[in-house]
């Protein structure tokens, strides 16, 4: 009996979680210029509107931004994770705090801080793509270091000692043993960074510039003038990218596990 | 006659189309200690879970102290359960753990304190009431789990491999301690284990399980000396199983003659043995004796055999033999400091008729190490 009640409650919560996304998808097929649900008539008009340069430009820019951010996060995250493997050295605590700091701060605050800093430092022309990449790397580094550390921790330290005892140099050990084993964590971290960057609004609001605006910010600006089913189509398109990425790498559960362990330890 | 503490009637649970536990029929009398013994996956834990109310049976009945409980939820069954991993509440003290069941029964505060104190004395945990389970040793945790199950004075104590997480020495101590306690309190107990030694030392009766069913139910002696199947014979202790066939079912003196590849044997009649029927002859290694050729005592069965290896085991010698048909057998010889058998030497392996046991039916090749796997 009580099991049935629990399952019905859970079914309702699932409906709550998924309904808005499904409704958005349905609205995009409306034949009239209103966000009706259920949709009136069927047309691909709004989808073709979403394919015009007004929207494909920001969409492609978002993809570029996300890819750059993911790569840059990995490039910075790997040496950081490797350094933090040393059990103790002077300044380790500071380094750790510096790495995890952006996790505690709302990304909106990081965004306005970056905006002021770049302007006052005289590199206001970095606002746009460079500033967006920098900001997203700052936001995603904690996750990258976490996921990398988790997979690096799973490497038996003996594997490295064994390789060293077989005559491999420090660099060879790194290339032949450590890095291949760190791949799963690095991959999860990169996918996470890509999706975070692609979906980010809070930071991008402040450091985008006309012509270098990600899709999310473009949508927010458009919303000031009203709603249109085009937005529904765009929302669905922007949902498909992360979905395709995750499906491609089959990592959804893997990423879930990493986030898991994250907060499990917190 | 008082009601049985536990009675299972045709208890059955299906897992998918191919795996079934049961039907199981079993009675645990008042004050009796019964063990479910079997390899992992034989259905003993499922049986326990059905009795506990954690798994719903597909068919059959469960009676506790005479009343049916199969439709009751776990919290109405009045059972004391000791779990394999003890399942002590980590956020509560030892005393709170032990008193949990009394609190759920709305026993008064003073009464709870008194009974918890008694229970802690009973299992020799005096003075540890304020500790948390995490601060206790394995043996102490085991005792808390036992006290928590006993303090509610359940109609039946269920023990699910409670000793398997302890080291050998502690395990041997706890065996004695648990069965002494159980006898002193006169509480009926159903014990689940895959360890034959535990089963032999602790139980009044043993139910050997295999493939979801009880293969044999009996006292330790019956199970060991008169196993119902090759599986039971092989699961408890080591044994020699030799294929043979019944030649003359009725001989003067109430014996039958069984021919084997190692030689003929005369053994007492048990049950109905058809002429020419295939059987397995079981001889426990400690009942198989050795003598110089021709020196076996009168009236015994003697087979010629060659010593292949002798292994010195302190109190006894294990002698491995090759029989006439090339099969092997093992004999334990008590180490009396006199006889010594050389490897390669020809001997007579002999046994008294009553020291052999006949298991009817053709031999299944898999029987000796049968492990029919279930969840």
């Amino acid at each position, binding site marked *: 009996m009580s099991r049935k009640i629990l399952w019905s409650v859970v079914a309702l919560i699932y409906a709550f979680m998924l309904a808005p996304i499904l409704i958005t998808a349905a609205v995009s097929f409306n034949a009239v210029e209103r966000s009706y649900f259920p949709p009136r008539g069927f047309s691909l008009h709004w989808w073709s509107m979403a394919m015009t340069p007004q929207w494909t430009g920001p969409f492609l820019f978002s993809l570029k931004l996300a890819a750059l951010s993911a790569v840059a996060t990995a490039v910075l995250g790997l040496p950081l994770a490797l*350094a933090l493997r040393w059990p103790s050295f002077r300044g380790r605590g500071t380094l750790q705090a510096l790495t995890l700091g952006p996790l505690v701060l*709302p990304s909106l605050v990081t965004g306005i801080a970056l905006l002021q800093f770049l302007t006052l430092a005289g590199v206001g022309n970095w606002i746009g793509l460079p500033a967006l990449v920098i900001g997203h790397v700052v936001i995603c580094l904690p996750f990258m270091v976490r996921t990398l550390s988790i997979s690096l921790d799973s490497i038996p330290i003996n594997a490295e000692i064994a390789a060293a005892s077989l005559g491999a140099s420090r660099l060879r050990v790194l290339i032949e043993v450590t890095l291949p084993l760190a791949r799963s964590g690095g991959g999860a971290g990169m996918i996470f960074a890509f999706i975070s960057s692609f979906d980010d*609004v809070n930071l991008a609001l402040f450091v985008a510039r006309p012509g270098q605006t990600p899709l999310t910010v473009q949508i927010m600006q458009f919303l000031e003038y009203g709603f249109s089913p085009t937005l529904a189509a765009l929302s669905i398109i922007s949902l498909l990218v992360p979905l395709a990425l995750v499906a491609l790498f089959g990592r959804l559960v893997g990423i879930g596990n990493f986030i898991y362990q994250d907060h499990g330890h917190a | 006659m008082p009601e049985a503490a536990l009675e299972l009637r045709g208890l059955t649970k299906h897992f998918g189309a191919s795996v079934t536990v049961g039907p199981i029929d079993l009675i645990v009398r008042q004050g009796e200690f019964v063990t479910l013994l079997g390899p992992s996956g034989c259905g003993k834990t499922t049986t326990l879970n059905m009795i506990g109310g954690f798994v719903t049976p597909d068919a059959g009945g469960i009676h506790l102290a005479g009343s049916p409980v199969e439709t009751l939820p776990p919290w109405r069954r009045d059972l004391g359960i000791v779990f394999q991993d003890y399942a002590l509440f980590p956020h509560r003290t030892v005393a709170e753990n032990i008193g949990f069941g009394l609190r759920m029964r709305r026993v008064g505060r003073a009464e709870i304190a008194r009974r918890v104190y008694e229970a802690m004395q009973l299992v020799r945990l005096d003075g540890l009431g304020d500790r948390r389970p995490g601060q206790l040793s394995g043996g102490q945790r085991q005792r808390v789990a036992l006290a928590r199950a006993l303090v509610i004075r359940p109609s039946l104590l269920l023990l699910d491999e409670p000793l398997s997480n302890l080291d050998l020495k502690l395990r041997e101590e706890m065996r004695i301690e648990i069965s002494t306690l159980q006898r002193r309190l006169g509480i009926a107990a159903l014990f689940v284990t895959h360890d034959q030694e535990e089963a032999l030392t602790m139980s009044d009766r043993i139910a050997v399980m295999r493939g979801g069913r009880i293969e044999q139910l009996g006292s330790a002696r019956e199970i060991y000396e008169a196993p119902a199947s090759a599986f039971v014979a092989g699961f408890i202790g080591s044994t020699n199983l030799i294929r043979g066939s019944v030649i003359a079912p009725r001989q003067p003196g109430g014996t039958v003659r069984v021919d084997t590849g190692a030689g003929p044997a005369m053994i007492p009649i048990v049950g109905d043995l058809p002429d020419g029927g295939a059987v397995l002859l079981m001889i426990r290694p400690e009942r198989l004796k050795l003598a110089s050729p021709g020196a076996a005592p009168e009236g015994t069965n003697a087979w010629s055999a060659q010593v292949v290896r002798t292994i010195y085991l302190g109190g006894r010698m294990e002698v491995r033999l090759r029989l006439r048909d090339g099969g092997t057998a093992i004999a334990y010889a008590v180490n009396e400091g006199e006889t010594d058998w050389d490897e390669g030497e020809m001997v007579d392996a002999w046994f008294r008729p009553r020291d052999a046991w006949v298991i009817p039916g053709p031999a299944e090749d898999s029987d000796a190490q049968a492990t029919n796997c279930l969840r």
Partner: protein
Amino acid sequence: MKPQGSAYLLAAFPAAFLLLFFALPILLLLSTSMLKSEDMVPIAQLTTANFSTLLTKKLYVDAILRTIGIGVAVGALVVVLGYPVAYTLVRTQSRWQPVLVALALSPLLASVIVRTYGWWVLLNHDGPINNFLLAMGVISAPLRMLPSTAVIIVGLAHALLPYGVLTIMAALNGVNPNLERAAMSLGAGRVRTFVSVTLPLTASGVIGGFLLAFGVAIGAYATPAILGGPGTQTMATLIYSFMMTLLDWSLGSAMGVILLASSFVVLALIMLAGRRSES
């Protein structure tokens, strides 16, 4: 080379990056919040006027309190709705379990905008809910559900629910199912078993999920911007208008500092409460 040396060598570049683009900007933010602004750019003149403006003007105080209220409500909703889902996902033996887990986490992939837009469609003055109620004759004029604080709370709770499910699942995974069985065998019914065993042992996950949702909710811009209006300003929407519309960076920074401080205060309060209950 000493092992320490290689750690420094490895960390040098990323550490410099974080110092330059994270630590330094935050320090700058802290200091501009105490400076006077002229034409967008803060000038070197110390003042506490930014904070006193934000902490005395009713409009701003309301926004701050509203934001914190939203954060608390969202945190509570996320935990209350996330718990049954997490419990079911961890304890079920259904072979659909992996699919259900993926489904529960999949909203994480969608941008907050996607997750919020559906609510706007559902609740706007000529959305399906209003149309349904009108058709049924329950109401005679469309309900004005938007903009409102309540809908912002629902939208954010919806967007952040997967985090609650994740943290509580992690905590539940650490609870031995035999503990629940033990409690039941000792006479505790389902509710008592949950209250006296399962819930206390997963308190860390509940607190973690609450904190995470609270922290993200008070700093969220998109949902209050889409589902809210001029009467439902939050710290985030105010920061946006200070920075990008009014171009008063000092005021924006000060609000940013208040946002930071409120998340730290709640964090500290909860950690304190946790410590007290433990001792």
